């Protein structure tokens, strides 16, 4: 469903702040894969998702979604295939617009926007039903401005917007990190439910190793801009947090030892 072929990306090339965020990254997702992505700060997790979403062009490599080469497509063009939920609850929705308007915008993702009316009566009914499934009481507040909602409500709404068109690929970029634990669990459970029901190919970044093990059928660990550990199926189910920590130690520990040697 998604193929990342030898993708590299360096920020601020040629300056003192040069940072190679992706380094010959290769990844192939099968249809229906629900992949959790873990890794330390600066490992390239978000950069990978942004590269797939087309936030900026990559330096090298190719990205294919469902066999279509999207490497040269701009962010809004790729949106036809991709649903996204961001870490910051403010990013995923238009605060000054109504709940139903936000949903209507998302419903037209990947379609031509012309001079037809922006939201029809039939849509409103559909949105009411969809919002009911969130169980947050939003179905009675269709015309409320999104800026009035709480962070958790906004993330749930963004999730709905990202998935209502059944995208070929769903990208969740630490979408529960900014929420309180209770709300985070609710949004996470909802995400898993939506992914399962719609059989969506999904990549979810998380900092929580337990969540990374609990959700999805596959887990990848990133380090220095590429994937150092890729596990799926039965093997993933048997994983323990301690296993992941050990893997992490091996990856970063080597580096740490080298640093020490240089210092001494």
């Amino acid at each position, binding site marked *: 469903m998604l193929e990342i072929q030898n993708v590299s990306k360096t920020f601020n090339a040629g300056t003192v702040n040069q940072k190679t965020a992706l380094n010959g990254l290769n990844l192939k997702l099968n249809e229906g894969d629900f992949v959790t992505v873990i890794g330390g700060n600066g490992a390239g997790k978000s950069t990978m998702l942004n590269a797939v979403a087309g936030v900026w062009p990559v330096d090298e490599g190719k990205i294919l979604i469902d066999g279509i080469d999207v490497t040269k497509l701009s962010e*809004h063009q790729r949106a036809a295939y*991709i649903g996204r939920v961001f870490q910051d609850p403010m990013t995923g*929705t238009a*605060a000054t*617009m109504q709940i139903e*308007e936000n949903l209507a*915008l*998302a419903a037209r993702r990947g379609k031509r926007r012309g001079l037809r009316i*922006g939201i029809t009566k039939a849509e409103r009914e559909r949105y009411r039903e969809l919002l009911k499934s969130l169980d947050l009481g939003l179905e009675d507040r269709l015309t409320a401005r999104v800026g009035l909602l709480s962070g958790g409500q906004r993330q749930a709404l963004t999730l709905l*917007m990202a998935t209502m068109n059944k995208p070929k690929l769903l990208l969740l970029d630490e979408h529960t990190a900014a929420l309180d634990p209770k709300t985070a669990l609710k949004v996470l459970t909802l995400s898993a439910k939506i992914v399962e029901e719609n059989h969506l190919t999904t990549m979810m970044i998380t900092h929580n190793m337990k969540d990374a093990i609990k959700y999805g059928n596959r887990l990848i660990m990133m380090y220095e801009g590429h994937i150092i550990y890729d596990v799926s199926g039965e093997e993933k189910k048997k994983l323990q947090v301690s296993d992941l920590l050990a893997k992490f130690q091996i990856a970063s520990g080597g580096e740490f030892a080298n640093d020490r040697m240089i210092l001494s």
Partner: protein
Amino acid sequence: MELLARLANLPGALPGACAQGLIWGIMAIGVYLTYRILDVADLTVDGSFGTGGAVCVMCLLSGMNVWAALFIALLAGLATGLVTGLLHTFMGIPAILAGILTQLALYSINLKIMGKANQSINVDKYDLLISLRWVKEFALHNPIIMVIIVTAVLIGVLYWFFGTELGCGIRATGSNPAMSRAQGINTNLNVVLGLAVSNGLVALSGALLSQYQGFSDVSMGRGAIVIGLAAVIIGEAVFGRIFQNFALKLVSVSLGAIIYYIVIQLVLTLGFDANLLKLLSASVVAVFLAVPYWKGKYFAKPTAKKKEGAKNA
């Protein structure tokens, strides 16, 4: 006593102030679209206002029908917005600077359109839509009535347009560009489109003013952005609470422009030095722009502290 005598002149000057306010109100609606909806401060308007006036007067002088002249002025305005939009999106120039560049270039272009610094058009010789000569007549061609009709039609069209898929996309672009792109909206295209529509309105307003005053001048748009912002801010301050609907918000901008011109007329009647008018306008706008910031910075905290105190207690 002298003051009272001066004030007695005010009623006679009011119709003129209303007409001017209504005409500038159309420009202010253009400013509202960029400043409030697209979240871009577009300085092109100082130039495109004059472009509208220049194009309209030259078209009329060449014997064109008044509606056709207005339409061509509108198209010229669209083109100026297109230029600013491309400078901003295609060439990556910050929006404010892009507007200033277009505005400066338009000064030369407006001179070239008219061939000299100003061109007059005589209402007796040409069939104009509005003229200040008719401002106290009770007839359809009274500028107040005519511009109210034009404004109502424009607001109707804008209300429809910003309710369409395309219009919703433009609103989303102004509200949250990152989200818009993630939802497949071409934000660059929408910014260009929004700037074009806005400057089309501004040019139309300039075209109406040139007919109203009987001439077009190369510097007639100077400070237009400030007048537009003043109208937007006054409209929001006075009607913000009661007018929530988009169409009513546009109405409040138009009303804001009328209030602005009535206040200007009032201070002029009271003997204020006309040379200081722009200083006064700029100061008023600066203060009004600062008020929301001050409110947030200096006046919001006490209530928040109170709440905290209540919690702790």
